């Protein structure tokens, strides 16, 4: 017993060092499982508070550009209004179903909420944004985040009561279902941590010609993102020798250097879709041994 105490006393510093290293590495490698722990929630509140103060000041430098972007967005929405269109056939009339108001909730798939980016990074391998909306305002994990002009920014990964953290597209673990506007073929958009202006689109087969400037949209198969929102445009096309598929460099449509106002989009059917998916897998896995 005495020897143990002597040992601890003698190597006290080394033991402290090892203990602290262990704690730090435990935090780091268990982050994904761990991030709902309450003290990270509290830390999120504190950093959120400081970030939102800083952001108030930062706002003044971006207002002009943000106004123009919102104005363009309004312009594109105004152009969609019904009164802009005439019915070519005079014998036909457009009737608006008055019942629509009562039943619309049932069919609603995406719910949009506005939010403000209060902290943003682009110079790491794992970049996160912080938004000034949290669980109190209905934000949950896995909601999509779109820029004020509708282009894709990222996915919510962690929520505290007043703030939320978003995994930006510029994150080496980010993977977004995407499709080409022209050919409708789908692949996934990832980031290789090289340049914050460019993403990689992988998994597109070499069937059709792809040229510079083609639009990359979110896929209709995505659980998180509403379909047909722009991710970026094709910058250059190479062929991945290992797989024989296209490897496409995509210039992001959102300017990640100055994100300001964003939308958080909730897929109201997401939990149902994910549940169905999981149950299908379970069912098939159970059946498998019988077939063998």
């Amino acid at each position, binding site marked *: 017993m005495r020897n143990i105490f002597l040992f601890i006393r003698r190597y006290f510093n080394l033991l402290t060092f090892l203990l602290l290293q262990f704690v*730090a590495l435990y935090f*780091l490698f268990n982050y994904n499982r761990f991030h709902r722990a309450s003290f990270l929630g509290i830390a999120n509140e504190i950093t959120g508070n400081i970030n939102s103060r800083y952001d108030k000041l930062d706002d003044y430098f971006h207002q002009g550009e943000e106004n123009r972007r919102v104005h363009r967005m309004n312009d594109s929405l105004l152009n969609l209004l019904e009164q802009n269109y005439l019915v070519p056939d005079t014998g036909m009339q457009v009737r608006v179903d008055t019942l629509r108001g009562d039943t619309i909730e049932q069919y609603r798939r995406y719910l949009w909420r506005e939010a403000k980016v209060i902290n943003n990074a682009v110079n790491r391998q794992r970049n996160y944004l912080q938004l000034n909306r949290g669980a109190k305002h209905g934000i949950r994990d896995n909601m999509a985040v779109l820029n004020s002009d509708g282009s894709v920014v990222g996915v919510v990964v962690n929520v505290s009561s007043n703030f939320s953290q978003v995994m930006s597209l510029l994150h080496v673990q980010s993977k977004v279902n995407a499709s080409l506007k022209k050919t409708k073929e789908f692949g996934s958009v990832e980031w290789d941590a090289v340049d914050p202006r460019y993403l990689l689109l992988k998994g597109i087969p070499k069937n059709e010609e792809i040229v510079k400037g083609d639009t990359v949209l979110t896929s209709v198969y995505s659980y998180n993102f509403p379909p047909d929102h722009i991710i970026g445009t094709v910058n250059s096309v190479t062929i991945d020798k290992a797989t024989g598929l296209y490897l496409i460099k995509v210039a992001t449509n959102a300017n990640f250097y100055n994100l300001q106002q964003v939308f958080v989009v909730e897929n109201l059917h997401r939990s149902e879709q994910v549940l169905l998916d999981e149950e299908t897998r379970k069912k098939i896995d159970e059946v498998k041994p019988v077939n063998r």
Partner: protein
Amino acid sequence: MSDLLKNIIRFLIFILVQVFVLDNIPPLHQFIVPIIYFLFILWLPFSISRFWLMIIGFLTGLSLDYFTMTPGLHAAACVLIAYARPFVINILTPKDTSEFNYREPSPKSMGWTPYLVYTLILTFLHNIYLVFLEWLQFGSFLDFLIKVIATTGISMMLIILTEILFPRRLRYRTNTPG
């Protein structure tokens, strides 16, 4: 100003500068990441015991981690340099204590060359561990090597600039407390 108050103010300034200035600089290149917050640990007084040095290092790293959403990453690197700091200081400073009267490491108290060696060793240790932990999860080995060298170079440049721009007025170590 007492050492405690001075160091608390320093701590806040270093963390805020790292989060809101250096992390917001548009990246020149994927390998170049300006990091300077750990200079706070290098500037702590000589008199702090190793145990507290490591605890302070852990807390410093963790506070930065909460801003960057990487719990444990910077904390691990900071604990490492806090642990290594006394070894490096022992090697670089004269054993004769009569020549060694200042409270904390600085170019003035140690001389420019020993001070630069001291910061270089610890900066290198910090960055190599930090980049190593990042690299474990993503990247190629060549990326790792280049990034360690590039970040260490940038950090050293920032440290030298800080020393020239903000020379610290140092008091002699005295027998009277305070």
